[in-house]
């Protein structure tokens, strides 16, 4: 099939590549609760889009992927609607600040270099942290098994940072709220808003839903079980990424045609990914997540060092 012209971004790309990329991203989205921007952003950049277009277009695509995956997760009981709605507020404010930073860099003319370097640092740090934590948890589980303690099953979850999460839950910063669906008796509203605000800044700056930051923070900081963090993150992303898409489109950073083509593959991938979460325990899902941001790092490094686009 010949390459298709996308007049808004001014690029020519084979739509099959875009649909396949969408399928892969959808699969990850459904399974890990992330938008997949750590791969989609660098991949779009490698297809020839400028970073500002890669960031905005990726956000639009993520709206679609999240709708499909969140609907499936809702059916599986993995969505805490209350938590998702609260987080959407913090994310939107953060995303707007992130988008303004992109605009500032665009005016200064060095958006490609700065975003490339920041994305390499962030993606690598997330991978290193998660491999460390998931290994600690799995080692702890093996020790418990040897000691004859009962293994946690289904959606019950454990992390190596449980003691830190408990300390965060004990912070008495009014107003305190409870999240029965996530099994959290009491937590400060400000803690939730801070987590979502940080995720929002990354979302606006590096593109996507920033699930690579928010999903781990929901597990380690808020103490949400992994399966629920995956589903709730996706639900929250629908709201915040829709706002992000609108904001970036106003700034001329979205080629919606590219997002629509990618979405055709993502729709099927997201369904398969979401169904697959039923067969894996929380720490294993987190450990499987580790290599993904590193693929993004590889793509950014390739484009940055060689100047070539795929």
């Amino acid at each position, binding site marked *: 099939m010949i390459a298709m012209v996308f007049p808004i971004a001014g690029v020519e790309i084979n739509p099959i590549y875009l649909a396949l990329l969408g399928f892969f991203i959808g699969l990850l989205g459904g399974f890990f609760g992330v938008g997949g921007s750590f791969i989609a952003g660098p991949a779009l950049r490698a297809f020839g889009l400028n970073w500002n277009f890669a960031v905005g277009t990726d956000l*639009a695509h993520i709206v679609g992927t999240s*709708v499909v995956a969140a609907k499936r997760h809702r059916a599986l009981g993995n969505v805490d609607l209350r938590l998702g709605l609260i987080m959407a507020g913090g994310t939107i404010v953060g995303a707007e600040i992130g988008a303004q930073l992109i605009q500032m860099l665009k005016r200064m003319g060095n958006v490609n270099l700065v975003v490339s370097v920041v994305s390499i640092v962030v993606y690598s740090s997330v991978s290193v942290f998660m491999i460390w934590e998931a290994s600690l948890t799995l080692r702890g589980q093996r020790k418990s098994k040897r000691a004859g303690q009962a293994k946690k099953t289904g959606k019950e979850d454990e992390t190596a940072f449980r003691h830190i999460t408990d300390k965060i839950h004990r912070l008495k910063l009014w107003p305190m709220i409870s999240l029965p669906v996530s099994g959290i008796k009491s937590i400060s509203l400000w803690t939730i808003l801070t987590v979502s605000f940080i995720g929002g800044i990354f979302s606006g700056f590096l593109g996507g839903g920033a699930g690579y930051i928010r999903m781990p923070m929901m597990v380690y900081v808020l103490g949400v079980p992994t399966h629920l963090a995956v589903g709730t993150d996706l639900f929250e992303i629908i709201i915040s990424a829709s706002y992000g*898409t609108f904001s970036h489109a106003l700034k001329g950073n979205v080629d*919606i045609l590219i997002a629509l083509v990618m979405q055709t593959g993502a729709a099927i991938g997201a369904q398969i990914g979401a169904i697959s979460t039923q067969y894996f325990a929380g720490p294993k899902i987190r450990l499987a997540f580790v290599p993904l941001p590193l693929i993004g790092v590889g793509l950014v490094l390739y484009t940055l060092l060689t100047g070539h686009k795929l």
Partner: protein
Amino acid sequence: MKDEARRALFSFAIEMIVYGFFIAGYFLLVLHLLGPSLARIEQEHIRWYALLCVALILGQSIVLESLTTFILRLLRGRSE
């Protein structure tokens, strides 16, 4: 178990073929026609374009989700 896996894989393959036909038609008809109009709206009415972006991606994802769920149900219903 092996039979179950084979059946699931077969259903998935059929689903991909059916879905592939829909998508190929969609690429050829809708996106080729939509491209120039969207580019013009983006140049002349950026606010409308921003609204359209959100509406189009939400609308398409809801339609595609229903389509894939329908195909999955149809194939699973037949294989069970």
